[in-house]
């Protein structure tokens, strides 16, 4: 650990490189976390199958590429494909667990994640897959920071999608209906909103966001049927830190998590990278609780 720190001090640009690469993967976490925050906030469901949606998005992108679609064009296709899958899953499973005990929804989505894993294993095989984009590499600071362009694409896509989502929720009719349902489903229903449709749309939108994330993962990293869990855990963590109602906070938390994780992996050693993520989560929860309590006392 000490020699790693020493290394970081003797090559300060290394830190910049690590943070830059961390921000890139953090943007993927943010993308998956948007969806999780939506589903959690609107349907009251913590979706354990979040990472499996990311994985499926990757496989949809791969399949599209096999049919001759250029790699970058597979991003919207994966999103659209997952939108349909998400809608179907809502009609099949999820509508049964809206408004039910949290435990029931955890169990149901956990089951869903296993089914999706095994199905993709059957359909796509257990092999590690990846999609070549043919994009190059960007050198910054005299070649001391090296950024694959596909990661920049991922980063840009996550930011743009975040902004679009924000605008959609603020301005679009369905977006407003989603917010209304999240605030008070009963009142929304009384005012004529078809909450069941809103739920379905929200869940499908979540799947679409994950699908886009998955297509980026398969181009910048690798996927296989069992890669879901890290993405579920990270998006959960991001949402816990950022809260449910704030897209800018989700982006910030996602990027921050990615950068911190990468730095921690470097300094503590990669074997502690995930341990660090969980310790960070506990610390943040404790601090948040403490800050909130102080605020309450102040209000009194």
């Amino acid at each position, binding site marked *: 650990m000490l020699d*790693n720190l020493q*290394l970081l001090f003797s*090559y300060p640009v*290394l830190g910049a*490189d*690590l943070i830059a*690469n*961390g921000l890139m*993967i953090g943007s993927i976490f943010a993308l998956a976390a948007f969806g999780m925050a939506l589903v959690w906030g609107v349907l009251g469901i913590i979706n354990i199958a979040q990472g499996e949606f990311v994985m499926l998005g990757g496989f949809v992108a791969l399949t599209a590429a096999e049919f001759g679609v250029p790699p970058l064009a597979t991003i919207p296709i994966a999103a659209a494909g997952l939108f349909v899958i998400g809608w179907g899953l809502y009609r099949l499973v999820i509508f049964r667990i809206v408004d039910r005990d949290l435990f029931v929804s955890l169990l149901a989505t956990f089951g869903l994640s296993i089914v999706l894993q*095994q199905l993709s*294993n*059957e359909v796509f*095989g*257990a*092999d*590690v*897959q*990846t999609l*070549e984009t043919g994009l190059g*590499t960007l*050198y910054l600071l005299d070649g001391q920071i*090296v950024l*694959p362009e*596909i*990661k920049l694409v991922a980063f840009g896509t996550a930011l743009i999608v975040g902004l679009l989502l924000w605008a959609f929720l603020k301005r679009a009719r369905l977006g407003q209906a989603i917010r209304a349902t999240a605030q008070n489903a009963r009142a929304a229903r009384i005012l004529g909103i078809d909450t069941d449709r809103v739920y379905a749309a929200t869940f499908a939108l979540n799947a679409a966001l994950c699908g886009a994330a998955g297509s980026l993962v398969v181009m*910048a*990293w*690798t996927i*296989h*049927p*069992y*890669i879901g*869990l*890290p993405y579920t855990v990270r998006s959960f963590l991001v949402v816990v830190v950022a809260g449910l109602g704030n897209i800018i906070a989700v982006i910030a938390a996602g990027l921050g998590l990615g950068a911190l994780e*990468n730095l921690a*992996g*470097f300094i503590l*050693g*990669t*074997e502690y*990278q*995930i341990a660090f993520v969980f310790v960070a989560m506990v610390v943040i929860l404790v601090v948040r609780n403490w800050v909130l309590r102080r605020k309450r006392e102040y209000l009194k």
Partner: protein
Amino acid sequence: MSRVRTLLRHAGAVFACIALVWAFVSQAHAKVENDMVYLGAAISLTGKYSTNGAHTQRGYDLAIERINAEGGVIVDGKTYKLAIIYYDDESTPARGAQLAERLIQQDGVTFILGPYSSGLTRAMAPIIEKYGIPMVEANGASISLFEEGYKYLFAVLSTTEQYLQGAVALAAQTAGDGEGLRVALAMENDPFSQDVRTGVIADAEHHGMRVIIDDKLPPDLSDLAATLAKVRVLKPDLLVVSGHAKGAALAIRQIADGRVDVPMLALTHCDAAQIIEKFGEKAEYALCASQWAPGLSYSDPLFGSASDFATLFEETYGYAPPYQAAESAAAVMVFADAFERAGTFDTLAVRDALSATDLMTFYGRIDFDEAGRNIAKPMVLYQVQDGKFRVVYPAEFAEAPFRHPTPRWADR
């Protein structure tokens, strides 16, 4: 009500007795019906090992087919055909252990072919040991399997610590003297890769090399950026990565995308990760550990040469055989040879015959040590050269000279 309950209890006791007697009887005699000898195998046909499970099964099937086509095995003057009872272990050790019990207890199998992976082999080994049922396995390489003193476990493949020792030797050989060479390790934190690491470190020290990076990668590995950042500034002479197929795929992808220059890169599971098909030129110069290669000069009367086996396999299944299939076929040959030498299907006699095995196969020589490991066959190293795997080490099997150093990305 209480009468029904008593009746049920009696019925239960009777069933238990029958099961016990049946288990005893079926255990005493090998599963031999007419002229068929049944071997048992629990294989990962579904779950995360399903690709390699299929390679394993095809290797077994091809050997059985060949042996039966050649007339079967001759035991005590009588000819027998071989057959395998398969179950799907779903890639989970707990299921593998259950199925071992099932094969032995219910199906009465007295000879078992191994599952895929060290983890599943480890789950099944105590059970075959408990019942005294010989198991010849071809896909559990972890050295720890052979430190438990098992008497009924035999492995035809080289153990894990040998996987990348060739890379260290090759680095030393190329430099003329290994003294002072700097080695970087990125090994998944699982039993397999940690065994590989132990072997590499021992050999590196033996050659006077220095280990400058020693990262343990998390099992749900999805990014190598932190390790590669270190590699970029410390510039090791040799980078060794082991993390199953996903480790190999990530390493090739991120080293190429990040333009990380290393003179020598050695990996495991390159063929499983299909690095040539998937990454093309980016995979050039990578060194890969392999148990076997179709270009090796071994041969036997059943399959002919290693390349004959490769041709037959490709004709039958439509793809070139990965080493997992070759070693699985060899495991069946070992059983057939032991039956013939034992002259009986008595489990103890077959076990003794197995431990005295000294057999030349298309896969290499097979000779078990006390612990049941095959100590007669070396690992080989491939290098990706012009879009093909070419054996470059050990020297006696080399198909092509080793290309070193890997040119810098800027010059490629």
